[in-house]
């Protein structure tokens, strides 16, 4: 393993945090108090966990409907996220957005939205602002394989290439868009990262279940954007364990093979990292994380509900 153990430990713990938050949401979803759609990232934690090693709160990131992991990896507050899913006043979007619309500008998480492809140009525009303001940061766009079918993906990459914008596109390819396999949506044998390259953006590919590969390639990608102030596109293969939206497993409904799921589970990066680290001190850290998560749910449940009278004030921002 080319990764230093201390670093690996951090990666592991970030991935662990993400998974446990998600699992807790899944477990408590049946209580019917989180009354909004949730798209969980269980199975997809490694990429954001590794990503978190290379960026700071100063950098920007935007994401999609499946944003919990990205929000957390960027340093977003667990309390505010859980409160948001509970629709509380203390939520990161004051209850107006729910799971699909997260924001935490304090840590550079500039927003996630639920329209497929919708934030790709937004993250690109953040890159434009960095360039024009000559700031020392990068903008990251998290996107799924499905979103690369939207014209706006293509238009955004074209513009980033024309203008040399400091944007990192991280495409998590989990093979599915809802229940649709890649092959009914994109030409066979076409690699997304190759396509990005031919649009005009340097690109690479990594195995999102292999922590070493993931680490090296993401480091390379991020350094490229930082040093050259040019866009980069990286595609990482990954897999979601649960249903597209909601807390359950859905291997039985017929759009994918149970076998496929099991194959991925066997290579689960969290298990592999934990085994490799075989570090007893991890237990203490894990416990701390679990407590924080528990606290977040308590915080969310006990938080005040938002007042309807206030919602009109969010329609327009007031001039100051």
């Amino acid at each position, binding site marked *: 393993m080319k990764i230093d153990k201390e670093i690996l430990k951090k990666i592991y713990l970030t991935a662990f945090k993400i998974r446990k938050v998600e699992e807790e949401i899944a477990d408590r979803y049946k209580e019917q108090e989180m009354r909004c*759609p*949730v798209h969980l990232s269980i199975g997809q934690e490694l990429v954001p966990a590794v990503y978190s090693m290379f960026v700071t709160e100063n950098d920007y990131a935007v994401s999609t409907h499946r944003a919990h992991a990205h929000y957390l990896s960027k340093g977003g507050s667990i309390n505010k996220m859980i409160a948001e899913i509970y*629709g509380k006043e203390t939520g990161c979007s004051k209850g107006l957005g729910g799971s699909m619309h997260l924001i935490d500008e304090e840590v550079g998480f500039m927003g996630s939205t639920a329209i497929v492809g919708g934030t790709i140009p937004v993250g690109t525009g953040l890159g434009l602002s960095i360039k024009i303001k000559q700031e020392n940061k990068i903008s990251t766009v998290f996107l799924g394989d499905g979103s690369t079918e939207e014209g706006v993906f293509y238009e955004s990459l074209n513009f980033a290439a024309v203008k040399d914008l400091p944007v990192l596109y991280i495409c998590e390819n989990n093979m599915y868009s809802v229940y649709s396999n890649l092959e009914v*949506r994109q030409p066979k044998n076409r690699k997304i990262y190759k396509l990005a390259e031919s649009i005009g953006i340097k690109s690479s590919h990594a195995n999102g279940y292999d922590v070493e590969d993931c680490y090296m390639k993401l480091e390379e990608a991020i350094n490229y954007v930082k040093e050259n102030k040019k866009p980069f596109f990286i595609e990482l293969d990954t897999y979601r364990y649960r249903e597209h*939206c909601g807390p359950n497993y859905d291997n039985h409904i017929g759009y994918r093979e149970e076998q496929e799921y099991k194959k991925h589970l066997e290579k689960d990066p969290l298990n592999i990292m934990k085994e490799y680290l075989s570090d007893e001190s991890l237990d203490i850290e894990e416990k701390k994380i679990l407590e924080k998560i528990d606290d977040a749910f308590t915080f969310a449940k006990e938080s005040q509900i938002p007042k*309807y009278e206030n919602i009109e004030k969010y329609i327009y921002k007031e001039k100051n």
Partner: protein
Amino acid sequence: MRELTFSKAINEALETAMRIDDSVIKYGLGVTDPLGVFNTTLDLEEKFGKDRVFDMPTSENAMTGVAVGASIGGLKPVMTHQRLDFFLLAMDQLVNNAAKWNFMFGGNSSVPITIRLIIGRGWGQGPTHAQSLQAWFAHIPGLKVVMPTTPQDAKGLLLESIFDPNPVIFLEHRWLHNMVGDVPEDDDFRVAIGKCEILKSGNDVTIVSMSYMSIEAIHAAEKLTENGISCEIIDLKTVSPVDWETIYESVEKTKRIIVLDTSSEFASIASDIVAKVSTKFFNVLKSAPQIIALPDVHSPTSYHLSGNYYKDAKDIVVEIANMFDKNIDVSDFMTKEHHDIPGDWFKGPF
């Protein structure tokens, strides 16, 4: 007659259309998946094959243009989008091509496509999964815009939409999918586009309504009847072109009107109906016309906010009672455990 859910009625309409006409094709995200777009597309792929029934890339704009092209090539495409909000990506192809095609080519070529859009509500659908944009579509000349309320109309209007030579936007309110109602046995049963229906006759006030709001109107009318106010409920069914005659006749009789809309109010279908009636029946109306629509605010996600945001039978009762200077107690009328679901069948998340 037999009882069917709204979803099943749509599924039947699709099945019938595809069976009686080889040129009908059906595509959209989720059309072939195990859930079959809230059960509306189940079994179609099996019955009619992969050529005519297929999933698609997430490319809403091009796939709308593809429908335009396929239709001028002789097919009758029926598209679906799981939420109206997603279809905002396709406004160019819808408006600049589909809606203008027959006109801009002097009637030489028309675009017989049907686009099913689902209006979301409840369980925290929030700002990007609950828009109700019928006013947009109706504002564009050349589109027909249909909003069925009952399973019967869902089937009859969908069949009529598919075989209409023009582009039709077919709007399904998510809260109607599991509602049950009588549907004629007749396999190829049609309901005319451009005609509204008097769901209930009455003498004192005309309620013009559409889609899910007509259900709330029915409940409200019962309560109002108990209180001596007789409502005539007109279910619009088609919001463009509007069946003005039926509305005008009713207003002529009742001399009062309230219009219910599932969308936000400003520049809505409801405001247009009130405007037309006010212009034409200025000397007839006995009290100010009214509108119940959503506020000019996006749909908030939180359960704790959506209750006040959406309007229901209570609001209608109160507003109509006001027109007659009455006070009707609605404090325990139609109260349900959770305001954000249409019934127990709806378990979220979509």
